[in-house]
């Protein structure tokens, strides 16, 4: 009955469309162009154009005696960016971002699964509230949390001392940065993965179990592949998040470990070498875009073979 009513209504509005004046018809047909106008202006003028100008800047010639770089084409900036010590920052950024991405996905998935599938209770509400609250938490305090963990007299070394083991200077290496980046990436990753676990119909899993699969097999052959879109999105978000980390290495290595974003920031604002900073940015952009493309490609192929 309701279906019939709905189809009648649909036909009515359709016939109304056809009869109405051609002006109104065209206005309706092309309304979406007007709707897309603000976003297009915003993206073209304030996003694409700046990126193109940044690309152009990266080929300019830097002159230390003048504030403005000379608009003479050169590849010198890229040569410097790709040679030591800056190339070390590139490999380090890639290492930290890749480690962060893998750890983030491994840690986020069980938590997301629990939050989707368990019954609503106080514990679940608290975890959810905490996750959303962490979006509003100051970045600096989240980084300082790991200063207290990894610092010279931090919690980790206090535990080591308690057990009579030798303490270690953790803050000089890349691991505290990676761990802190995982901490920063998990909340958004959990939200994204939860979104895709939510769309899985539990009856599909039941079907696998009826066909003889045990719980572990069902999880790896059915649930995990079906939640792949969420995993891909989570990896992209955590990779780009850690690729642009700049405060984290500053606080957690006291300037000993520098990532690409640190050089970009330093050359733009302190040294005022725009062409070099632009070349570094372009390299970082190419890296993160190709990794994003790679992650989605590899994971999608993996699910097709399965």
């Amino acid at each position: 009955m309701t279906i019939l009513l709905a189809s009648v209504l649909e036909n009515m509005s359709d016939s109304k469309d056809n009869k109405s004046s051609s002006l109104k018809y065209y206005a309706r047909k092309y309304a979406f162009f007007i709707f897309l106008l603000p976003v297009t202006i915003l993206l073209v003028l304030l996003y694409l154009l700046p990126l193109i100008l940044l690309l152009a800047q990266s080929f300019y010639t830097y002159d230390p005696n003048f504030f403005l770089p000379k608009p003479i084409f050169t590849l010198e900036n890229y040569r410097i960016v790709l040679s030591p010590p800056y190339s070390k920052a590139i490999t380090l950024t890639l290492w930290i971002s890749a480690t962060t991405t893998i750890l983030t996905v491994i840690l986020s998935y069980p938590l997301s699964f629990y939050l989707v599938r368990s019954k609503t209770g106080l514990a679940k509400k608290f975890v959810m509230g905490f996750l959303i609250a962490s979006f509003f938490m100051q970045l600096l305090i989240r980084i300082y949390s790991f200063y207290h963990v990894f610092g010279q007299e931090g919690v980790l070394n206090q535990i080591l001392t308690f057990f009579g083991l030798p303490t270690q200077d953790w803050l000089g290496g890349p691991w505290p940065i990676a761990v802190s980046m995982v901490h920063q990436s998990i909340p958004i990753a959990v939200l994204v993965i939860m979104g895709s676990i939510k769309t899985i119909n539990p009856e599909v899993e039941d079907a696998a179990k009826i066909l003889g699969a045990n719980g572990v097999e069902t999880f790896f052959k059915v649930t995990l592949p079906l939640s792949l879109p969420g995993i891909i999105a989570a990896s992209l978000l955590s990779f780009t998040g850690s690729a642009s980390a700049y405060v984290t290495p500053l606080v957690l290595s006291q300037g000993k470990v520098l990532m690409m974003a640190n050089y970009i920031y330093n050359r733009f604002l302190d040294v005022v070498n725009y062409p070099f900073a632009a070349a570094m940015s372009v390299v970082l952009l190419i890296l993160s875009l190709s990794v994003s493309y790679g992650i989605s490609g590899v994971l999608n192929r993996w699910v097709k073979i399965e």
Partner: protein
Amino acid sequence: MGQNRVDRRNSWKKPADLIGKIAAKFLTWGTFLFLFVPILFALSMAFDTRKIMAFFPPKGFTLDWFRVFLDYTPFIEGLKNSLLIASIVTVVSLFVGVLCSLALVRSDFRGKGFFNTLILSPIVVPGVITGAALLNMLYGNLRQFNALPNIIIGHTILAMPYVVRTVSASLVGFNRTLEEAAQSLGADEITTFFKVTLPIIKPGIVAGAVFAFSISWGDVNLAAFLTDAYTTTFPVALMGYMRYYSNPAVAAASAFLMGITAILMIVIEKTIGFEKFVGLW
């Protein structure tokens, strides 16, 4: 249908499943503790009586650092600026994002896939690069030194994809006959939008607003490029403070804001509920 369902409790009785279940439980709560406990270390330092930044655990109890925080002008200026910027960014990105989502979900045109990718691409472009590109253009090319509008522009670019994503998600499952029913009952298109469409996609809009506000509120990567000596945002002011002073005032500032955040969480839970908020990604 009911007979075909597998009893979940029985299916876990196989040994492999038991191990799997224990491992999953362990990982779940381990992850939560990893997220939660270090923050307690940092926040508890807000009550530390030592004059310089020391390590956990705090010694003694004092509220002096909250006074230091409230008396430091850049913090208060930064809070005002951050609130203003985040509010404007939320409104602008919602306006642009809702229009865009409506067009993207409800119409088909050549190059729609490309357009979609373009709109969502600021998510995969590191924030540092968006900031650097804007600095390069606004300062280098256009000599536009007014920090406030520059930051608003940058944050809107960062926040908009999230709004488009959440609002589109709430539009995809939308039953359009509801709108047609309203129109056949005599409502014009604008009335239909405000009385029918908007209330139904409200969860998507609220989730988008939360994302937009929190991105602008917490952003350091982009704001670090675009703030100047006169206009600063709160996270950048915190970083500046950390450069020159090493004391627990930073922890006090964060603890103070955590209180406000807790209130905000209750508002979110009461208006749309956490459950709905998550489904929209």
